[in-house]
């Protein structure tokens, strides 16, 4: 007998192929909203492409590329209100751009510079999470806390397909379900965990099936379709605000880029598949949609892209203008009231380095 909480297996799509598959539309999204979404995607894309260049120029350190995931990221965040919280993984390092964070802040993070620190409360955006899946319980706790306070804010957390294998994902998802926390569990199924394919990560036919075990609704969307992601996230958020607890969204994408600038994917990835996916990448798909809708002309497109490029140019300049951090920072911020031994350690360190 089938479970009574069936996960939706069909890929939700809105954008057509400009041919046999017709375009759909998302109720409530006006022209301005559609263009805002586009601006966000372009900004994310520009940040990513510039970062790869900056890395090759030695201007930032190792960088986790997200090329091709812009629709998934922008679609989700646009479905949130500003007081909703975002818990990103390193793969969504630039998501703050969609919350008004200066590119320089994120570039500084990748430059190993403390100017990359921010106060999560300033953007309702948690710090970039490096250990896989460990941000999921944080998001569950925040969402639970908001419910306890009677606030309407929700939380959304991004994590990958590989992350679903971690105990931290499991414990966080279950906590959210049990506490009826308004949380969107957004799984970016790009089908690779570094060199490990999804088939070596799980036997589930679809990651959305995991929702069933937590007794929460799950839905599956084409992660390259920004409007589908937007709609699915909006539905999940409204469920959360209505006190119905968390929702699991599997956004199906593909990692067309190496895991990070340090990684050589050729060793393991199927290059033909990569080419196919690249040809069908999400920004181009959305541009086609907007053009068919007559909302985007090449002039506006150029203008938006120029804006983004300018923002990044200014961003890297600002990041590089940051003065080198003082080593005193080593001893700051670990505690509100650092022990006296820290002063002694710092004094000694300065003496040694100066002499």
């Amino acid at each position: 007998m089938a479970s009574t909480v069936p996960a939706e297996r069909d890929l939700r799509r809105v954008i057509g192929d400009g041919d046999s598959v017709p375009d759909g539309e998302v109720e409530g999204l006006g022209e301005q909203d559609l263009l805002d979404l586009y601006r966000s995607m372009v900004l994310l894309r520009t940040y990513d492409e510039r970062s790869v260049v900056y890395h090759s120029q030695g201007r930032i350190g190792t960088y986790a590329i997200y090329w091709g995931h812009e629709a998934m990221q922008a679609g989700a965040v646009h479905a949130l209100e500003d007081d909703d919280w975002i818990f990103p993984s390193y793969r969504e390092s630039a998501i703050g751009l969609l919350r008004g964070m200066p590119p320089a802040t994120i570039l500084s993070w990748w430059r190993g510079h403390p100017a990359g620190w921010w106060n999560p409360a300033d953007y309702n955006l948690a710090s970039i999470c490096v250990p896989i899946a460990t941000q999921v319980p944080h998001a569950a706790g925040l969402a639970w806390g908001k419910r306890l306070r009677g606030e309407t804010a929700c939380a959304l957390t991004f994590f990958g397909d590989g992350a679903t294998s971690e105990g931290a994902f499991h414990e966080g998802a279950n906590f959210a379900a049990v506490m009826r926390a308004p949380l969107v569990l957004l799984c970016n199924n790009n089908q690779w965990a570094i060199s490990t394919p999804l088939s070596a990560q799980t036997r589930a036919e679809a990651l959305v099936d995991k929702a069933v075990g937590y007794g929460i609704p799950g839905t599956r969307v084409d992660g390259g379709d920004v409007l589908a992601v937007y709609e699915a996230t909006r539905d999940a958020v409204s469920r959360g605000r209505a006190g119905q607890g968390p929702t699991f969204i599997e956004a199906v994408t593909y990692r067309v880029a190496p895991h990070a600038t340090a990684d050589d994917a050729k060793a393991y990835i199927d290059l033909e598949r990569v080419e196919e996916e690249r040809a069908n990448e999400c920004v181009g798909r959305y541009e086609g949609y907007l053009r068919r809708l007559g909302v985007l002309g090449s002039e506006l497109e150029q203008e938006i892209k120029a804006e983004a490029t300018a923002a990044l140019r200014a961003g890297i300049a600002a990041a590089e203008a940051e003065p080198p951090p003082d080593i005193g920072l080593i001893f700051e911020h670990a505690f509100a009231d650092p022990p006296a031994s820290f002063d002694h350690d710092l004094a000694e360190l300065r003496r040694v380095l100066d002499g």
Partner: protein
Amino acid sequence: MADKYLVEAVNDALHVEMDRDPDVLVLGEDVGRSGGVFRATAGLRDRFGADRCVDTPLAEAGILGSAVGLCMAGFRPVCEMQYDAFSYPCLDQLITHVGRYRWRTGGKMTFPITIRMPYGGGVRAPELHDDSPETYYVHTPGIKVAIPSTPADAKGLLAAAIRDPDPVVILEPKLVYRTERGEVPDGEHVVQLGKARLAREGSDLTLVAYGAMVPVCERAADALDASVEVLDLRSLKPLDEGALLASAARTGRVVLVQEAPRTCGYAAELAAILAEKALLDLQAPVLRVTGYDVPYPYWTIEDAYMPSVARVVDAARRLLDF
């Protein structure tokens, strides 16, 4: 002032602090409906409601991880780990996030998390109910650690932990939960972290301990025909280094007592501090009386494993005869 057992003092502190600050929230396994397997949280659910004394799913990393998020929502979570050895699943969250998140925000966001748990051996329990895990916590940057030995300190240190802007781990000596009894101040009572307690003054030798080893050292002091000082550290991080060095300077002979396995135990840290800063004061080697570098034994022989009055006395005599 009221006469209380140590575990009752813990319960008292929780009542007072939850009453004082509506943002304080207790979460853990079985802390609510049953009031905790040691009854440390008894009465909280009835008094403050199921939303402020929460029976969580059985998942320690989930408990501590969601506490991080609760802090972001403005709460001061007090997490109970049901037993010492069952806190290990939360070490990953502790090391990678709880100890680092404030730093990660440039000090702009605080994480006033308290983690409290019963710890230590001697209770005739099946395996993994007997560990002394302080090293795992003390070694972790960004984490404070306190271990009370008296009911008054159990209340005062827990209150200090709950009010502290940073994460604090409180290890409660379960062996003496219902044997150590003493005067506990009514209402608000805070014992500042980082201040040791001179349990007994002396001039010939110093016994340094914390938690359940303090009464052992006091009995050892009684058994010795010498003037023995007993220093109850109370707070391991921050450490009251001044009190340690002052006592070592007074007596020149120091025995460090810990229940945990020896290698890299907290006594090693204390010995290292003495070897660096008190070398010229020392009139004899620094001895450690500790648990051994083996799995905590079956309880039929656990008394031989635990640092005992006899072992402490023996070490002290060796130093006095040095």
